[in-house]
C-alpha cells in the first residue's frame, strides 16, 4: 500500500508541471519584444519615442500593462472587441489610466489583419501583430482571447503576472473593477 501511495504521489509530481505551463499569478515572464512599429498615436499613449520600430514591454511608460491576446479570426474576440473598447474608454476617463495601459497582440495575425480588426471594430487601444505566434507561445497560452496583467519587476528580471483570464469577460463595469483591483494602481 505504501508503494501504491508513493507511486501515486510520484505520478502527481510528474504530471503537475505539464498542466501548469499556462501563466499564473505570481509567475515572472520574460520581457518580450514587440516587433512592430507603433503608429504615432500609439507611441504617444505608450510613452515610446517617435520612430520606434520595435520595443520591449518594459519600455512602455506604465506601472502595469493589460495585454489582450486576440485574433482577427477568433469569433469570441470579434464579439468582445467593442465591449473591450468601451472598457478602455472608461479607463481613460480615470486617473489610473496614466499608470495602467492597455495593448492588444494579434496572435498569428499579419499587420493587415490587425489593421482590419482595428478598423472593423473601431478599437481605440494599440494593437500589434504576432504573425508567427512567437509572443503567444512565450506567454505560455494557446487560446484567444486571453488577458494578462503584467508589472515589470524592479530587478529587471521580467514581467510579473498579476492577473490572468482566459476567455471572455461577462460585464464591462465588473471587468474594469476587476482589473483596477488586480493592478493595485491608485
Amino acid at each position: 500500500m505504501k508503494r501504491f501511495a508513493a507511486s501515486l504521489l510520484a505520478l502527481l509530481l510528474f504530471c503537475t508541471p505539464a498542466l501548469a505551463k499556462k501563466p499564473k499569478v505570481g509567475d515572472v515572464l520574460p520581457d518580450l519584444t514587440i516587433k512592430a512599429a507603433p503608429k504615432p498615436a500609439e507611441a504617444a499613449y505608450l510613452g515610446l519615442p517617435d520612430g520606434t520600430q520595435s520595443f520591449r514591454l518594459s519600455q512602455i511608460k506604465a506601472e502595469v500593462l493589460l495585454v489582450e491576446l486576440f485574433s482577427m479570426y477568433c469569433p469570441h474576440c470579434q464579439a468582445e472587441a467593442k465591449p473591450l473598447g468601451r472598457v478602455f474608454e472608461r479607463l481613460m476617463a480615470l486617473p489610473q489610466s496614466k499608470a495602467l495601459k492597455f495593448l492588444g497582440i494579434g496572435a498569428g495575425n499579419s499587420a493587415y489583419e490587425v489593421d482590419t480588426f482595428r478598423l472593423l471594430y473601431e478599437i481605440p487601444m494599440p494593437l500589434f501583430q504576432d504573425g508567427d505566434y512567437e509572443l503567444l507561445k512565450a506567454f505560455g497560452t494557446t487560446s484567444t482571447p486571453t488577458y494578462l496583467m503584467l508589472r515589470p519587476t524592479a530587478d529587471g528580471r521580467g514581467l510579473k503576472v498579476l492577473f490572468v483570464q482566459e476567455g471572455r469577460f461577462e460585464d464591462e463595469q465588473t471587468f474594469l473593477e476587476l482589473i483596477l483591483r488586480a493592478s493595485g494602481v491608485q
Partner: protein
Amino acid sequence: MRKTLALLFLTVAFWMASALAPALAVDLKDMLYDPGQLKPVDSSLKVRPGSPAPDFALPSTTGQTVRLSDFRGQKNVVLSFVPAAFTPVCSDQWPGYNATRALFEQREAIILGITTDNVPSLYAWIVEMRGLWFPVLSDFWPHGAVAKKYGVLRTSGTTERAIVIIDKKGVVRFAKSFDINRRPDLGLIMGELDKLK
C-alpha cells in the same frame, strides 16, 4: 494508515478537480481534432493564372447545388479550399471571412468554401461556427473530384489550404496552395482581388 490514505485520496480528488475543471467547459475549440503539424503542401496545382477555371457543380449545406459558371458575369469568385471540418486552423479561417464580409463584397467577390467532408458533417460544423455568409460545398463524392481537377487534393484525401481567385469572365487570376498548417494572409487575398478592378 487509514487516515493517511484518506488524506491522500482527498488531496488527489482536490488536485484532479482543480486541474481538470477548465477542460470541462465546452466550446468549439474543445470539440476540434488537432492533426498536429502536417506536410505543408502535398499536391501540384493544375490551374494557372490566365487559364479558364474548370467548371463544377457541388452540393451545398443549404441543400442546393452550386455551379461555378452561375457566377460568370456576376461576381469574382474566391474558392477557399480547406482541409477538414472540426480542425483548428480551418475553424477560425472561415469565421475570419465572416467578420470581413464587407471587404469581399466591396471587391464584388463571393467566397465558395470547399472541403471533401460530407454535407451533414459540414452542416454541423457551420452551426458550431454560428453560421457563414457564403456557400460551403461538399466535394465528398466522387471523393475530391473537384479538388483533383484543380490539383489541390492531398494524398490523405483532404484538400490543401488553397485559394483560387476567378474573375467574372471565368478566368483564373490567382491560385496557390498555402502551408496547410497556417491561414493564408487576408492582405494577400485582398491585394489579389484589388488587381481585378
